[in-house]
C-alpha cells in the first residue's frame, strides 16, 4: 500500500486504545479487582499526555503526520488528466498533528486523567449488584478519549466522522450508566440530540464531498470548490482548441462546474451543517437543550468529562473544518456570531437561576461555549488560535470547579447544593482557594488571570473583524457571567452561620470516615493536579498561549 504508517507519531491515539484493550483483558483475568480498570485507564491517559508532548514544540507550519498518501496513490485513483493534476497535490495525510492539535490532545488527555481520578471507585460500592460497571466505564472513558485525540488530528472526513462518533457514543452510555432516573432522562435527551446531530453531520460531510470532490478537510479541498481553476476535482482543465465544455463531462477527468458560486453555496451549507452537528457537542444554543439534563443526571466525574473532554473533541473537530475553510479567506461567519451571542446570553441567564452547582456549571458550559466559538467569526489563524486558547482556559477552570464539587460530594451528600459551599473558605481554605481561582477564571476576573487573558484573546478576532455588536453582547455577558460565578463565590467566602456549620460538621466527619481514604486521596490528587495547572497558567499565561503557537 502506498500509505505510510508512522507508529511513533500515532502514539497519542494508540495508547488509549491499548489501555482500552488492557482493561478488557484485565477484566477477563481478574474481574474482582475493582480498581484495576481505573488504574489502567488512569495510567493510559497519563501516558497519552506524555505521548502528546513531542508534538507541542512544533513551530510554524510543521506537523507530525502519518497515514500520508503519496501522490502516486492519489493518482492511481484517478486517471488521465486528473493524474497529471494530482501529481501537483501536496501530500495529504489522515493524521496530522501540529502544535495546536497536540495541545488540544494534551488537554483532553489531562482532563480525562483528572476525571478518572475523580471517578475513582471507593470501598463502599454504589451499585453492589452491578459488578461490571468499573471496567465498562474505564473502557468507555478511554474510547471517548481516543475519539477526541484522533478527531483533533484527523484531516479527512472518514476519520473525522468515525472519531467524532467514537468520542460521542461512549459518553451517552456513560451518562446512562450513572444509574439514576435523571441519568436516563439525560441520556435519552443526549441520545436523540446526538443522533439527529450526527445525521446532520453526515449530511454536511456529504455536501462537503459534493462541493469539493475531496474527502479531505484540507485548505486545498476547500479552495477547489470556489476557484475556477484549481487542483481539486471539479476544476476546469485548460480548454484545448476545438474542445467545448460539454464534451468535457464524463470520463474526461476534469468536469465542469456550472457556476463556481453554486459549489461555494453547497460548501457553505456543508460547513454550516458541520457546525450545527458539532454545535450540539459544544452545547451551543439552540443545540444545547440536553446539557443541563445530562450533566445533572450523570455522576459528577462524568459531567466533568462531558464538560471538558467532550468540548475539546467538539472544538477540535470544528477547528479541523474551519482551518480548511480558512484558506478561502472567507470573511466572518455570521452564523457563528449568532450562535455565540445566543449561547452566551441564554447560558448566563439560566445559570443565574440555578441552585444546583452541577446544573449551574452545565449552563455555564453553554455560556462558555459561546465564548469559545465567538473568535471563530473570524475564520482565520487568529480566530482559530483564540478559540483554542479560550477553550483551554475554560477547560482548566471548569475542571477545577468540577473537581471541587466531586471532592465535596464525597464528604457530604448535599454537595450539589449551592448552600453546601457556604463558609467553605473557613472550613477548607485550600479547596476554597482552588474554587475561587476556578470561578474567577471562568468569570474572567483576576486572580483567575487566565480567564481574563482568555477573554482578551477571544475578543481580539471579533474586534479585528469589526463586529461591534458581538463585542458589546460579549461585554454584557461578561457582566452576567460575573454575576453567575459570584453568586457561588458569595457563599464560599461568607463566614458560616454558627448553627448550620456546627450541625453539618459531624455529618461530614462521619461520612468522610466511612469513605475510603484512598478514594478521597486520589480524587484530591486529581483536584491538586488541575488546580496546579490553573495556578501555573494564571501566573504565566504565556505558557498556555505559546503552546498554541
Amino acid at each position: 500500500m502506498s500509505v505510510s504508517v508512522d507508529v511513533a507519531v500515532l502514539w497519542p491515539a494508540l495508547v488509549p486504545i491499548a489501555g482500552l484493550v488492557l482493561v478488557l483483558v484485565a477484566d477477563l483475568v481478574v474481574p474482582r479487582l475493582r480498581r484495576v480498570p481505573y488504574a489502567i485507564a488512569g495510567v493510559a491517559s497519563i501516558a497519552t499526555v506524555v505521548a502528546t508532548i513531542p508534538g507541542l514544540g512544533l513551530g510554524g507550519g510543521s506537523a507530525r503526520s502519518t497515514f500520508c498518501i503519496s501522490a502516486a496513490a492519489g493518482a492511481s485513483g484517478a486517471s488521465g488528466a486528473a493524474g497529471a493534476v494530482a501529481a501537483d497535490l501536496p501530500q495529504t495525510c489522515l493524521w496530522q498533528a501540529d502544535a495546536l492539535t497536540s495541545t488540544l490532545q494534551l488537554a483532553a488527555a489531562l482532563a480525562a486523567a483528572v476525571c478518572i481520578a475523580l471517578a475513582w471507585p471507593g470501598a463502599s460500592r454504589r451499585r453492589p449488584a452491578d459488578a461490571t460497571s468499573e471496567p465498562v466505564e474505564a473502557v468507555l472513558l478511554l474510547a471517548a478519549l481516543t475519539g477526541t485525540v484522533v478527531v483533533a488530528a484527523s484531516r479527512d472526513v472518514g476519520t473525522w466522522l468515525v472519531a467524532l462518533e467514537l468520542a460521542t457514543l461512549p459518553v451517552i452510555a456513560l451518562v446512562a450508566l450513572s444509574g439514576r432516573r435523571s441519568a436516563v432522562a439525560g441520556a435519552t435527551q443526549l441520545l436523540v440530540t446526538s443522533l439527529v446531530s450526527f445525521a446532520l453531520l453526515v449530511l454536511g460531510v456529504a455536501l462537503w464531498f459534493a462541493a469539493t470532490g475531496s474527502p479531505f478537510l484540507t485548505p486545498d479541498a476547500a479552495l477547489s470548490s470556489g476557484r475556477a481553476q484549481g487542483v481539486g476535482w471539479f476544476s476546469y482543465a485548460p480548454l484545448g482548441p476545438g474542445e467545448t465544455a460539454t464534451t468535457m463531462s464524463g470520463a474526461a477527468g476534469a468536469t465542469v462546474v456550472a457556476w463556481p458560486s453554486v459549489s461555494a453555496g453547497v460548501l457553505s451549507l456543508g460547513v454550516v451543517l458541520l457546525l450545527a452537528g458539532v454545535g450540539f457537542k459544544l452545547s451551543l444554543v439552540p443545540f444545547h437543550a440536553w446539557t443541563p439534563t445530562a450533566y445533572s443526571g450523570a455522576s459528577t466525574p462524568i459531567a466533568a468529562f462531558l464538560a471538558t473532554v467532550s468540548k475539546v473533541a467538539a472544538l477540535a473537530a470544528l477547528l479541523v473544518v474551519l482551518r480548511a475553510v480558512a484558506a478561502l479567506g472567507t470573511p466572518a461567519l455570521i452564523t457563528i456570531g449568532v450562535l455565540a451571542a445566543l449561547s452566551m446570553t441564554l447560558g448566563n441567564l439560566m445559570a443565574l437561576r440555578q441552585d444546583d452547582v452541577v446544573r449551574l456549571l452545565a449552563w455555564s458550559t453553554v455560556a462558555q461555549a459561546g465564548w469559545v466559538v465567538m473568535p471563530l467569526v473570524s475564520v482565520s489563524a487568529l480566530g482559530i488560535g483564540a478559540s483554542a486558547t479560550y477553550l483551554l482556559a475554560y477547560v482548566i477552570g471548569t475542571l477545577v470547579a468540577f473537581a471541587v464539587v466531586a471532592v465535596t460530594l464525597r464528604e457530604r451528600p448535599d454537595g450539589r447544593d449551592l448552600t453546601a459551599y457556604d463558609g467553605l473558605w473557613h472550613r477548607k481554605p485550600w479547596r476554597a482557594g482552588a474554587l475561587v481561582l476556578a470561578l474567577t477564571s471562568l468569570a474572567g476576573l483576576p486572580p483567575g488571570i487566565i480567564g481574563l487573558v482568555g477573554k482578551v484573546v477571544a475578543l481580539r478576532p471579533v474586534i479585528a473583524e469589526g463586529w461591534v455588536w458581538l463585542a458589546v453582547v460579549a461585554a454584557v455577558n461578561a457582566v452576567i457571567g460575573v454575576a453567575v460565578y459570584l453568586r457561588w463565590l458569595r457563599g464560599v467566602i461568607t463566614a458560616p452561620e454558627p448553627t448550620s456549620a456546627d450541625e453539618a460538621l459531624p455529618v461530614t466527619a462521619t461520612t468522610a470516615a466511612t469513605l475510603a481514604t484512598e478514594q478521597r486521596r486520589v480524587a484530591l490528587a486529581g483536584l491538586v493536579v488541575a488546580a496546579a495547572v490553573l495556578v501555573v497558567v494564571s501566573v504565566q499565561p504565556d505558557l498556555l498561549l505559546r503552546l498554541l503557537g
Partner: protein
Amino acid sequence: MSWIVRMIVVLPALAALAGLLARRQRLLAAGIAIGMSAYVAVLAFIQWVAPARTADIESIGRLSTGALQVPLHLLSDRLSGLVALAVAVVVLAIQVFTAWYLRDDPRYGQFAATVSLFATGMLLLVQASDLVLILVGWEIMGWCSWLLIGHDSQRPEARRAAYKAFIVTRVADIGMVVGLVALAVRAGSTDLITVLTASGHDTALTVGLVGVIIGVAGKSGLIPFHDWLPDAMEGPTPASALIHAATMVAAGSYVIARLFSLYASHDGARTLLAVLASATMVYAALLAFAQTDLKRMLAYSTLSQIAIMLAALAAAPPDIGFAPAIGHLVAHAFFKALLFLGAGWLSVLAGATALAALRGRLHGTGALRWSIGLGLAALAGVPPLIGFFTKDSVIETSIEGATGGGGARAWLVVVALFVTVVLTATYCARAWLLLDTPLAAAEPQSGGSPNAATGSDVPEAVVVAEEDLAVVTAADSADDAEVERVHAHGHAPITLSAALAVATLAALTVFGTLLLFSLTGALKPGIVSALLSLLLVVGAAYAVWTLSDRGRHDVADRVPSHVRDRAVRGFGADTAYVGVGRAVTAVARLVVALDRDVVDAYPRATVVAARGLGRVGERSHRGVPSLSLLALLAGVVVIAVLGVTAWR
C-alpha cells in the same frame, strides 16, 4: 521690604495655627493672638509708611498650569498699605477686646485663632496681586465668618445664622468665581497687573465685571443678598465688629477698587453697581431706623455704609478713582469697630442688646458714653470726625462724576447719598437719644422683660426643615445671645487693655483723617456739599429730637406698628431666602427620587428582565427530548439559510 508684605500675610496664619494648638492654655492663646496682631500692626504701619510699590512679590511660586499664568504675586502700594494698616489696627483692637469679652468662654482659644485666620484672609486679599489669591482670601473670610457667627453653636439661631451667612455669600460667589475666571481667561493670566492691562474680549470683560459685582453684592450685603448680615449678629460682638468693620463686608469695595480701571471703562457694570448700591444704602438706612436691637441697627447701618463706598466706586470719575471709597472704607472701619466694641461693652454692662433694655443705660458710663457718642457722630457724619470727611468726599466725588459725564448713574448715586445722609443722621440721633436719655425720663415700657417679649415670637419663626438652605431667624434673637452670655458669665468690669482698645479706636475716629492723607484723593471735601450735608444732618437730628420729645419716646414708635414689625424682620427677605431654599430642596428631593426611580431603574430593570428571562428559560428547559429536537432542527434550518445567504 517684600518680606514685610509676606509676613503681614503669613503671621496671622501662623498665629491661627499656634492659637489652635495652644487653645487649652488661655493665657498663651491670648498672648499669641494679641502679640501676633500687634506685630502685624507694626509691620502694616511700616508698610504704610514706606510701601514697596511693587506688584511682583513672590509668594509660593508660580504654578504649572499649562497655558494659564498663575504667578501668585503679592503687591504693596499706598492703597494696600492704608487698608492693611486699618485692618491690622482694627484686628488688634478686637483681639485685645476679645480677651476680655470672652473671658469665660471655654472656646476662647478657637475664637481667637479663627479671628487670626480671618485676618489672614483679609490681609491676603489686601496684599494680593493675583486674582486667585484674592479669591483665596475672599473665601477664607467666608469660612471664618461661618465659624465666628456660629461660635455659640449651642444656640440653633447661631447655627442658622452662620449657615445662612455662608450659603448666601457662597451663592453670590458663583458670580465671583465665574467673574474672576472670565477675567483670567481674558488676560491668560491671573496676575492683577496683566488682568488690568489686558485688552479685548468684551464679553469676557462684561461677564467678569458683572460676576465680580455679584460676588461683592453677596459679601458686602447688597440687595438682594443683604439679609445675612443682620442675622450675623448672632455671633459674639467682637466677631460682628470684625466682620462689619474692616474686613469681610468691606473686602468687596477693596476688590472693586483694585479692579477700578476696568470698571471705569465699563459703564454697564458700573450702572449695575450704582443701582444696587443706591437701593441698598437707602433701604438699609430705613431699616436701621426701625430696628429694636442695637446690634441689628448697627448691622443695617453697615449695609448702608458699605453701599456708600460701592456707590462712590460706581459714580467716581476715572480721574479721581477709588480713593474716596477707600477713604470711607477706612473711616468706616474705625468708627464701626468702635461702635461694635462699645456695644459689646455696653451689653456686658446692661446684659442685653435690645434697645428697649438699653434705654438710658449709657448715661453716666464715662468713656463708654464718649466712645459710642463719637462713633454715632462719625457715622452720622458730624464734623470734624473722620466720617464727615470721607462721606463728604464721596458725595463730592459723586457730584463730580455726575457733572463730569457720569450721567444718570451718578445722579442716582448723588440723590441716594443725600437721602442716606438724612436717614443716617436720623437713626443715629434716635439711637443716641434712646441710649443716653435716662430711663427715669422715658415712658414706661409696655413689653416687660426682653426675655418674655422675645421668647414669645421665636417658635413660629424658627420652624424650618433640616434641609432648608436659608433659615428664619428671629429678629431679636441676637439679643438672646447677650442675655445668655451675661446670664452665664455675669457682669465683669472691663479690663484696662480692652478699654484702651476702645479708646484707641475712638481716637482714630477723631484723628484718623490724618491717615488718609497718605492716599491721594481720599480726602476731597467740597464746600457746598459739605455744608449741605451738614445742614441735612443737623436738620434730621433736630427733627428726631423734637419728634421723640427730647428722647423720652422712641421716635421709631411713630412708624405704624405693622410696618415696623415687618421692617424689623427685614420685610420678609428671610422668607424669600427660605423660599429659595425650599425650592432647591424640592429640586434635590426630585433628584433623589429620579436617582432612585429613573437612573437606578435601569440596572434594576435589567435584573428583573434577566430574572424573568431566566424564568421563561427555566420553563422551557424541563428536559423534554422532543422539544430539544425541535430547537435543534429549527436552529439548523435557520442558521443554514443564514449561513448560505451570508456566505461571502
